[in-house]
């Protein structure tokens, strides 16, 4: 048979690779900055844009979508062409994908710093950007499937299965979680409310980790590890089981992020069971990776690429062991809302994602420039610095999480809480400092890589189009009868549909009953919609990213009920578009903040938190005292909420601002009565925020006393 000559497109891989490096450094810098802000709040520069609540989403989004995203695209485009023995489907689509994605990243960076956020973790980007992501994702899909369809290799190697599952699942997750109703060009409300919003969000959040940070990277592992070790994967059979079991089980586990919350119990248990089962496929994959190196460990000593991979795969194994442990309810009772979670995700982020990204960069770049790595020694130093950085990051965070959580739960013999919340925070300040040193070491390692890669590129000549040849596929070549399974794994579209069916099942089983069975969200008669001023205040709360440090979910534990009040009920959140339960308590829970302190306390606290709580780590929010509240948006917001089913009276949008003004006046009168030195006018943003904070959790106080809160099931 005639072999065909063709060329691999290295240019697009180069572009994504360089973007990976750039955004990796930017994302890590943002991470280091927020880490320092936690123990040194003044380092926020007292600017709205650079304060923790806005910078932290920038860090997470930059690392997930810009660093790991670009690294995955680079690795996928490099390996896909070679596994399919074909150039990418369309150069034009490749470049639309590249520039489109970078434009999304730029738009994300700008809007997040402006405080334009949906308030849902890792899905913070506002609706126009959500649409852009969908379009670019379709472009990526067409390009990938086009390449697969014109391939010259009959079989689809397992790495490609992982890429297919990534594409289809991320599409599904992104669309379902981003359903929102636009209020203005850069503001929207989540379609879902309260418990349902939480379930959809964490179904998304958990599976974004699974299908954006895990499956594409596993695909890369299955290609680059055998390449770097120059031997096939340990067990291909195991890799098939790994793939199907992983994508099937992962999707069910989301509710483990909501243990002990107001989510229905059956959904929590479902999440726990599937999380525990996840150990099996994850460890199957880890062992498959490590066993690939059997008899080749001498190469690990020589080759920095393999060094990074070994630690990456080990970290994958560690975090996928830890994940199921954290999803056990008794462990979660200690770990949740604490820094333990932060440690856990950074084993995954720094170890698994970061190190695997570094390893493929060190592998691809010398190959694409037809040269050798400038300095293996420098790369080895990067490896050690990074590894020590990870340890120095994670150990203090584990310690801090454990210690703080136990302090929360301590009682004196008299039955009083032993520690104030603030004491439990200031106590772990040294851990926060150690963590930022670990992060800094990791960043220095990454900068060494930048230099190493720069020198490598300078010493080689870029091969934009790499020549290759292969025989074309002939239809009907496999005329003899085959097993049906071999037929399936040769058919990419069938794979796509099968993967979608599999991942959809888990989501449907969780969501349909939560949406459709009324008893899952018992209503409480006294829970009423927010007033216009409170709604505006709530949007300020979301804008400033308060949910990155404050939860609004009191779990049914003795210490939490004692510290914060009656535990949270599902029915209290029915008007919360989006929900604001949070996932981390750097500050105390705010679910029942309403009425605990007076208005002037909040006013001064926003101006300077340390004036009211000495030693507090909260940033100053001076601009809230200066900024005028934009009331022109009130009618549109009320209309949007009405569309979503919040029972405001008909025509209320037209008179909402009158009520808003009245409530603002009364709050200002209160503040002046409490502290006559405070000079505040009703048109300021801080007034709206105070209105919201004072409303939090108060509705059920209106329920008749001396009997359990009635839940109308």
């Amino acid at each position, binding site marked *: 048979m005639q072999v065909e000559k063709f060329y691999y497109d290295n240019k697009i891989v180069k572009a994504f690779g360089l973007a990976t490096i750039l955004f990796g450094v930017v994302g890590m810098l943002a991470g280091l900055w927020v880490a320092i802000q936690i123990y040194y709040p003044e380092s926020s520069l007292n600017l709205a844009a650079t304060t923790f609540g806005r910078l932290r989403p920038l860090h997470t989004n930059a690392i997930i979508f810009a660093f790991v995203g670009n690294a995955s695209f680079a690795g996928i485009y490099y390996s896909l062409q070679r596994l399919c023995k074909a150039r990418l489907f369309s150069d034009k689509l490749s470049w639309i994908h590249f520039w489109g994605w970078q434009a999304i990243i730029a738009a994300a960076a700008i809007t997040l710093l402006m405080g334009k956020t949906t308030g849902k973790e890792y899905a913070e980007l506002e609706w126009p950007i959500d649409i852009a992501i969908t379009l670019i994702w379709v472009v990526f899909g067409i390009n990938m499937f086009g390449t697969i369809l014109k391939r010259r290799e009959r079989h689809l190697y397992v790495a490609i299965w992982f890429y297919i599952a990534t594409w289809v699942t991320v599409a599904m997750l992104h669309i379902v979680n981003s359903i929102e109703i636009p209020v203005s060009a850069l503001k929207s409300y989540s379609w879902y409310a309260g418990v349902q919003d939480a379930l959809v969000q964490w179904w998304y959040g958990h599976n974004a980790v699974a299908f954006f940070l895990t499956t594409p990277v596993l695909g890369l592992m299955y290609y680059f590890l055998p390449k770097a070790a120059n031997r096939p994967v340990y067990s291909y*059979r195991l890799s*098939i089981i790994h793939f199907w079991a992983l994508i099937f089980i992962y999707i069910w586990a989301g509710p483990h992020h909501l243990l002990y919350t107001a989510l229905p119990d059956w959904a929590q248990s479902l999440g726990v069971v599937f999380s525990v089962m996840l150990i099996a496929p994850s460890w199957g994959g880890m062992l498959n990776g490590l066993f690939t190196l059997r008899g080749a460990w001498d190469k690990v000593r020589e080759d920095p690429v393999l060094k990074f991979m070994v630690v990456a795969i080990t970290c994958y194994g560690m975090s996928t062991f830890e994940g199921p442990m954290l999803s056990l309810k008794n462990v979660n009772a200690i770990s949740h809302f604490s820094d333990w979670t932060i440690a856990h995700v950074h084993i995954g982020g720094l170890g698994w994602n970061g190190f695997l990204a570094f390893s493929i960069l060190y592998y691809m770049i010398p190959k694409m420039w037809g040269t050798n790595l400038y300095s293996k020694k420098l790369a080895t130093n990067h490896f050690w610095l990074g590894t020590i950085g990870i340890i120095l990051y994670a150990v203090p965070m584990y310690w801090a999480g454990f210690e703080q959580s136990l302090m929360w739960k301590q009682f004196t013999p008299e039955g009083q809480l032993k520690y104030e919340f603030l004491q439990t925070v200031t106590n772990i300040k040294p851990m926060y400092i150690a963590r930022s040193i670990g992060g800094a070491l990791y960043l220095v390692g990454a900068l060494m890589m930048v230099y190493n890669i720069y020198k490598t590129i300078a010493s080689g000549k870029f091969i934009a189009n790499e020549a290759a040849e292969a025989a074309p596929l002939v239809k009907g070549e496999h005329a003899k009868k085959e097993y049906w399974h*071999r037929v399936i794994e040769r058919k990419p579209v069938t794979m796509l549909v099968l993967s979608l069916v599999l991942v959809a099942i888990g989501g449907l089983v969780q969501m*349909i009953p939560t949406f459709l*069975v*009324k008893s899952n*969200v018992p209503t409480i008669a006294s829970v009423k919609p927010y007033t216009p001023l409170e709604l505006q205040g709530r949007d300020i709360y979301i804008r400033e990213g308060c949910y990155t440090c404050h939860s609004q979910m009191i779990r049914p534990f003795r210490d939490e009920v004692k510290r914060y009040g009656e535990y949270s009920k599902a029915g209290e959140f029915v008007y919360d578009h989006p929900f604001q339960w949070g996932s981390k308590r750097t500050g105390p829970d705010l679910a029942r903040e309403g009425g605990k302190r007076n208005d002037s306390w909040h006013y001064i606290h926003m101006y300077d938190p340390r004036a009211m709580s000495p030693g507090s780590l909260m940033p100053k929010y001076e601009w809230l005292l200066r900024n005028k509240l934009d009331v022109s948006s009130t009618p549109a917001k009320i209309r949007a909420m009405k569309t*979503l089913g919040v029972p405001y009276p008909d025509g209320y949008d037209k008179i909402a601002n009158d009520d808003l003004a009245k409530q603002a006046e009364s709050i200002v009168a209160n503040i002046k009565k409490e502290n006559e030195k405070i000079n505040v006018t009703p048109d300021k943003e801080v007034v709206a925020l105070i209105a919201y904070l004072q409303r939090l959790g108060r509705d059920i106080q209106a329920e008749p006393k001396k009997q359990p809160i009635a839940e109308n099931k």
Partner: protein
Amino acid sequence: MKFINYLEKVSNVGIMGIVSLLIFVLFFTVMLTWVFRTKKKDLQEISRIPLDN
């Protein structure tokens, strides 16, 4: 427009649990049958694909 209350009276919602379990067991049975009925030679051949380029 509201999501809650739509299928409040959904009949036999209890069947979802059983269906889920069945899907789960069936899925693993089919997958493991597939994997273990595939010949080792074929798998070895496929696992060498990354090394061929």
